[in-house]
């Protein structure tokens, strides 16, 4: 059974986490992640959730607690954002290298300087090389569901998964959604059975130094698992649909878009909601535009994205993160995925918003209508 509710995005995530029964939760507060851990600590406090909630003194310690608890064989959870995720960086590499499962929710927020608490994706895109899977949600329902899917996939892959929501845009807004009951989730997500754990009955050493040849071998293995992760995740999503009736994918097209149009917009996260409105209006006004949303960023769904864009002549990529000196992060990845096509579309790299700069449907419509002025070579910034 699924119960209807109206919840903040962060509360929806807390319910998703509760249903997955983590034994250990540890986090350090940072806006806009705080409601997630506040709700979880209330659940632990009231006895609704049987878990150990550890209030640490930094994000680095929060993820290090996970390193200990998951190595000891307990399903665990943490959440962060922005500066906090950046502070975890060293441990994010270590964690994936250690081949431990985990679900971490990141509430997307800009990185200073200057101080800024609002949404962009530079915090999580900066972590793209750490060996974590990355999933970006458009709605709070999707975020709740993705937590459950992510635990299932993470424990099968023995790799950690980062689930992204847009800070404030999703975390602090109410949405009507369905909360599955515990029985449903239990039938989808079995308890975590660690293949190896810190156990005096079977004393093993974890993370000891590896010589170059062995190190290379282990990293090759990680890359191999990552290469197969898309398929496994798709299977988990399919199974999720059978249990819960909601379907997600790596690359998702918007129903508002025109599949046949030679022009497409590529975007990621809750910005998609605004793009949907713009695309619908443009189609009504006679400007056919297709909409392609990237839900999965790692492993990058290159084949799926190329399939969605192979017949396009123009692709506008809307970026909310920049690799300074190289361009929008999403544009770079999109271009790389299209490179092998015999006829490649022109890709416009547009930096649409950073640090929460407001995007209206009119902003997007203007970009589409005036795209002749965009450079297909260098980055395009708004006035």
């Amino acid at each position, binding site marked *: 059974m699924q119960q209807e509710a109206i919840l903040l995005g962060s509360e929806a995530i807390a319910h998703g986490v509760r249903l997955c029964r983590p034994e250990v939760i540890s986090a350090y507060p940072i806006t806009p992640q705080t409601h997630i851990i506040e709700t979880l600590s209330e659940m632990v406090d009231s006895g609704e959730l049987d878990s*150990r909630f550890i209030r640490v003194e930094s994000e680095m310690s929060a993820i290090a607690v996970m*390193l*200990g608890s998951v190595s*000891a064989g*307990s399903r665990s959870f943490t959440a962060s954002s922005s500066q906090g995720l950046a502070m975890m960086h060293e441990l994010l590499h270590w964690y994936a290298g250690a081949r431990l499962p985990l679900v971490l929710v990141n509430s997307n927020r800009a990185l200073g300087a200057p101080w800024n608490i609002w949404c962009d994706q530079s915090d999580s895109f900066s972590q793209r090389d750490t060996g974590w899977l990355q999933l970006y949600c458009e709605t709070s329902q999707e975020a709740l569901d993705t937590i459950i899917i992510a635990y299932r996939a993470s424990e099968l892959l023995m790799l950690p998964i980062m689930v992204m929501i847009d800070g404030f845009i999703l975390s602090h807004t109410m949405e009507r959604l369905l909360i599955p009951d515990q029985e449903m989730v239990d039938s989808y997500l079995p308890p975590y059975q660690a293949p190896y754990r810190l*156990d005096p009955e079977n004393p093993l050493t974890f993370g000891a130094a590896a010589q170059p040849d062995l190190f290379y071998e282990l990293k090759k293995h990680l890359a191999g698992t990552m290469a197969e992760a898309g398929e496994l995740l798709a299977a988990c999503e399919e199974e999720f649909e059978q249990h819960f009736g909601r379907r997600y994918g790596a690359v998702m097209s918007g129903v508002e878009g025109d599949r046949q149009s030679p022009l497409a917009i590529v975007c990621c996260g809750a910005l998609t909601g605004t793009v949907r409105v713009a695309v619908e209006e443009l189609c009504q006004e006679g400007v056919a535009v297709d909409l392609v949303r990237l839900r999965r960023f790692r492993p990058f769904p290159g084949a799926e994205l190329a399939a969605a864009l192979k017949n396009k002549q123009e692709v506008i990529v809307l970026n909310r993160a920049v690799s300074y000196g190289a361009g929008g992060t999403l544009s770079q990845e999109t271009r790389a995925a299209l490179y092998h096509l015999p006829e490649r579309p022109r890709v416009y790299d547009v930096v649409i918003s950073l640090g929460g700069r407001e995007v209206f449907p009119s902003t997007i419509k203007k970009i589409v209508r005036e795209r002749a002025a965009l450079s297909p070579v260098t980055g395009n910034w708004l006035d």
Partner: protein
Amino acid sequence: MQQESFANRFTPDCRWQITPAELVASGHMGCPGCGASLSLRHALKVLGPETVVVMPACCWAIIAGGQPTTALGVPLLHTPFAVAAAAATGTRQALLAQGREEVTVLAWAGDGGTFDIGLQSISGAVERGEDIIYVCYDNEAYMNTGIQQSSATPPGTWTTTTPSGKDFKYAKKDILGIVRAHNPAYLASATIAYPEDFYAKFEKARETRGFRFLHVLAACPSGWKIDSDKSLEVTRMAVDSGVFPLLEMNLDGTLVETVRPAKTIPVANYLKAQGRFRRMTTEEIALWQTGVEQKRLTNKA
């Protein structure tokens, strides 16, 4: 109870019994005369096989051996440098969640991972009263990376980043004082050069619940510039001269000296036994001597 367990280690003819079971295997990567290797060997003899070791970057991260070998007969979790206390927290909390309360979690870190980069996560773990034993084996510099100064290095010491040893602006951090200010369940300093005291303290730590902290002075022959067969002798001199008093925290929070050598030796003897203090002047040594004597007055015998 604790007194009894200490007395029980002696046979009727007063010979001291140490368990022959080894949880640190021979063939490990420690240097000859390494105080850190000897310290963990004996610490694990006390704590026993129902122990999980959590270890940040430090000499021991190498001593334990590279994949696919290991020198430890207990589970070992290697962690990044700054987070031993936090990773030990997670390990302990998971074991508690699984109902495995009997397992001891031991964080085993060097002075860099304790006095410097790991201090913040220790502060968090003591404040939360995490049920772990945290041991800092202190060889008074970043020995594993090639003898660089840490905040556990005494002023006037030669290291590769204090090449002249002339910098007296810093002082070795009072790590016991720092941890004591967080209200740990147990706190002591020890060295394997005084093994009876070392064993008694690890036994007390094992029998206590909550955050337990041991500061263990561990000689490093290559960093201290001493012969490897002198490492215990020189460490003993650190205690006998008062440079490294063997302390234990009372229930009221005061520090008590558990071993006060019958005859103290001059600090100069300890310093002159080591190449790392070679350039210290008579005045500087005299200053150190005064400091040691003043400090001693504050500790109860």
